C-alpha cells in the first residue's frame, strides 16, 4: 500500500448525498479478476453519455459535459468532497480502487458508509469525516475559487486551506493512521499475533468443537 503523509491537492466537488458504490463503479466492471483497470470507469454512468461496457475504448467515448469531473478545471484533482453517506451499498472494493486509479487520494464527506470507509484504508485512500457545516463551506470554496486546493496532513490530522488561515481537525484511529503513514501491510502486522490467534483457536475448538468439524 502506498504511504499517505501530506497531500496538497486540487479539490473536486460531487454534490450528491448517498452516492452508492454502484454509481462509483457500475457492476459490469466488476467482472475483472484484477485490482486495476477501473479508473476509466469511475462514475461511468454519470461521466459518459453512452452506456459503458468492459472492453470499450473509453478514450473514444463521448463525455457528459454536465458531469462535474469532466470540467477542465477539475482535471488532476486528488481530493474529492462529497455529501453524507458516501459509498453506501455494495461492499465492492472496486470503488476505492477506481477512485485511486482516477487520481483521488482523499475523500472528504460528512459521513461514509461503514464498509466503504473500511475499504478505503486498506488501499491508501484517506476518507476524512468533517462536520456538515465545514463540508458546506468547502463546497462553497470550490465553487467560488477556481483551482481551489487543500492540504491534508495525516500526521496532524488536519485539513487546511493553502495559506493556513483556516483548518479543520479530523479523527482517525491510531492503528489506521499508523498503517497509512507507513504504508504498512496489515496482514503482515496481524501475523505478528499468530500465536495469539492459534491459542484462541485451540480454546475455541475445545469449547465449541462443532465449529471445527
Amino acid at each position, binding site marked *: 500500500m502506498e504511504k499517505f503523509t501530506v497531500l496538497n491537492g486540487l479539490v473536486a466537488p460531487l454534490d*450528491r*448525498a*448517498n452516492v*452508492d458504490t*454502484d*454509481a462509483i463503479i*457500475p*457492476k*459490469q466492471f*466488476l*467482472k*475483472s*479478476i*484484477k*485490482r486495476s483497470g477501473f479508473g476509466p470507469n469511475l462514475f461511468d*454512468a454519470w461521466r459518459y453519455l453512452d*452506456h459503458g461496457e*468492459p*472492453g470499450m475504448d473509453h478514450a473514444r467515448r463521448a463525455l457528459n459535459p454536465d458531469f462535474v469531473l469532466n470540467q477542465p478545471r477539475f482535471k488532476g484533482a486528488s481530493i474529492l468532497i462529497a*455529501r*453524507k*453517506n458516501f459509498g*453506501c*451499498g*455494495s*461492499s*465492492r*472494493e472496486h470503488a*476505492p480502487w477506481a477512485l485511486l486509479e482516477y487520481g483521488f487520494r482523499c475523500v472528504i464527506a460528512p*459521513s*461514509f*458508509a*461503514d*464498509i466503504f470507509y*473500511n*475499504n478505503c484504508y*486498506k*488501499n491508501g485512500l484517506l476518507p476524512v469525516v468533517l462536520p456538515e457545516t465545514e463540508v458546506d463551506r468547502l463546497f462553497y470554496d470550490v465553487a467560488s475559487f477556481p483551482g481551489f486546493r487543500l492540504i491534508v496532513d495525516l500526521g496532524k490530522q488536519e485539513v487546511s486551506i493553502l495559506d493556513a488561515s483556516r483548518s479543520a481537525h479530523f479523527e482517525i*484511529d*491510531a*492503528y*489506521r493512521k499508523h498503517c497509512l503513514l507507513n504504508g504498512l*501491510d*496489515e*496482514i503482515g502486522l*496481524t*501475523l505478528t*499475533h*499468530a500465536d*495469539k*490467534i492459534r491459542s*484462541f*483457536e485451540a480454546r*475455541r475448538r475445545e469449547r*465449541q*468443537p*462443532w*465449529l*471445527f*468439524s
Partner: protein
Amino acid sequence: MGRTLYDKLWDDHVVHVGDDGTTLLYVDRHLVHEVTSPQAFEGLKLAGRKPWRMDSVVATADHNTPTTDWGRGIAGIVDPVSRLQVETLDANMREFRAKAYFPFLDKRQGIVHVIGPETGATLPGMTVVCGDSHTSTHGAFACLAFGIGTSEVEHVLATQCVNTKKMKNLRVTVDGLLERGVTAKDVALAVIGSIGTAGGTGYAIEFAGGTIRALSMESRMTLCNMAIEAGARSGMVAVDENTIGYLKGRPFAPTGEAWNRAAAYWRTLASDPDARFEREVRLDARALKPQVTWGTSPEMVASIEDRVPDPDKEKDAARREGMERALQYMGLKPNTPIGEIRIDKVFIGSCTNSRIEDLRAAAAVVKGRHVAASVRLALVVPGSGVVKAQAEREGLDRVFRDAGFEWREPGCSMCLAMNADRLEPGERCASTSNRNFEGRQGAGGRTHLVSPEMAAGAAIAGHFVDVRRLG
C-alpha cells in the same frame, strides 16, 4: 451490567485488542463468491502466504451465473469476463480446498446468503464474513455477520481474523401482529424509511419484539438482509426455538451429543434484560401497510395507499433536490397514487426474498391468475438449487408457469444484472430484491422494491396493487 447479543458475540471472538481499540476478531465462517475473491486469492499467492483455515470456507458461484440453458454447461456463460470469474473461483477451489464448494451447475449451488443457512454452514454464535454487503442476512441466526471488502477477504484467508472496531448497539423493537399480506420485507422497508439509509451507520442492529419472535427464520433473514440498507453492517435476532428447529438436521449442523451441547449454548444468545442500547427505535406492526419504494434509494419508500411524494413540499433543499433527481430518473410524477404505477417486468428472487417461504407466498397470490398482458417478463429465480427442488416438489413451478412466469435456475440474476437478466433503459420493475439504486438492475432500469406478495400482485395487475385486497 447486562450485555446485548452483539456484545456477547463480540466478546466471544476477541483475539487481541490494540491501544486504540482496533480489535482482531476471530472468524468462524468465511463465505466466498466469485466476484470479490479472485483478487484476494491472487494477493495471497503473490505474497507467498497460505490460507489459515480453509475448512472455515464455504464457496459458491452466484453473481455471474446464468439462469437459463444450464444444459450448455460453462459455455452457457456467454460473457467471457463472467465466465473467467467463475472459472477463476473453480481454479482457486481446486488449489485451496474449502470445507464446501457449490460450483456453477451443482444441484446445491445458489446465492451465498441462501445456501449458508440452508446447509447449516451458518450457526448461532458464529462470526460470519463474506465479501458481500448482504452478509448481514446470517444475523437472523444470532451470528455476528457482516460484509467485508476484498482486502479483508485476503486478510481473513491469511489470518482467520478481521481487524475491526466495535460498533454501537441499536435495537429495533417491532410489536404487534402483522396484517395478512404485510411481511418482513415491509417491516424492513418501513424501518429504513424511518431511520434512513445512513440511520444504522456505526451500529449493529438487533431486531427484537413480539413481531420478530413470531417471524419464521426465512422472514428474519429477509429483515437482517436489509440491515445493510439501513447503513448497519450487521443485523441480528436472538436465538429461540424457531432458530434451533430450523437448524436441526441441516447437513453441517452438529449431531448427537455435540448438538445438545451446541443447542444449550445457543440458547444463551440473547440480550440480557438489563442490557444497554445506545439507540432504540420502535415500530408498531399493526399500523404497517405493504410498502413500495418510489425512488433510487431504499429510504424513498411509501405504502401502497400513498402517493408519490411532492418535492415542492420538502423544505430541506438538499433532500428536495435528491427527490427531484430520483423522480426524474424513475420517470414518475409527484402525487401519482402508488397503485397507478404500471410496471414492465417483475423479478421474484435475490438473497432478500428467494427462499421457499417467499416462493410459496408469491405462488399463493398468483394461483389461478395470469400475468397481465402489458408485463413483458415475469421472472422467478429461486435462491438455490435446494429451494428450486423443494418448490418443484410442491408444484410451485407449475403455478408460476401456468400464470405466465418464467421459472429459472438459481442465482443472483436480476438483483444486480451481472448476468444476462436485466432491465432495458426506462423499463420499470417490481422487484423483491434490496437495492433500487440507479442502474442496479440494468442501465436506465427503474426498480421498485416490494415483498414477494406485492411483486406477484403487480405481475397479475400490471401495476401495483394492495395484496391485502386481492383476496
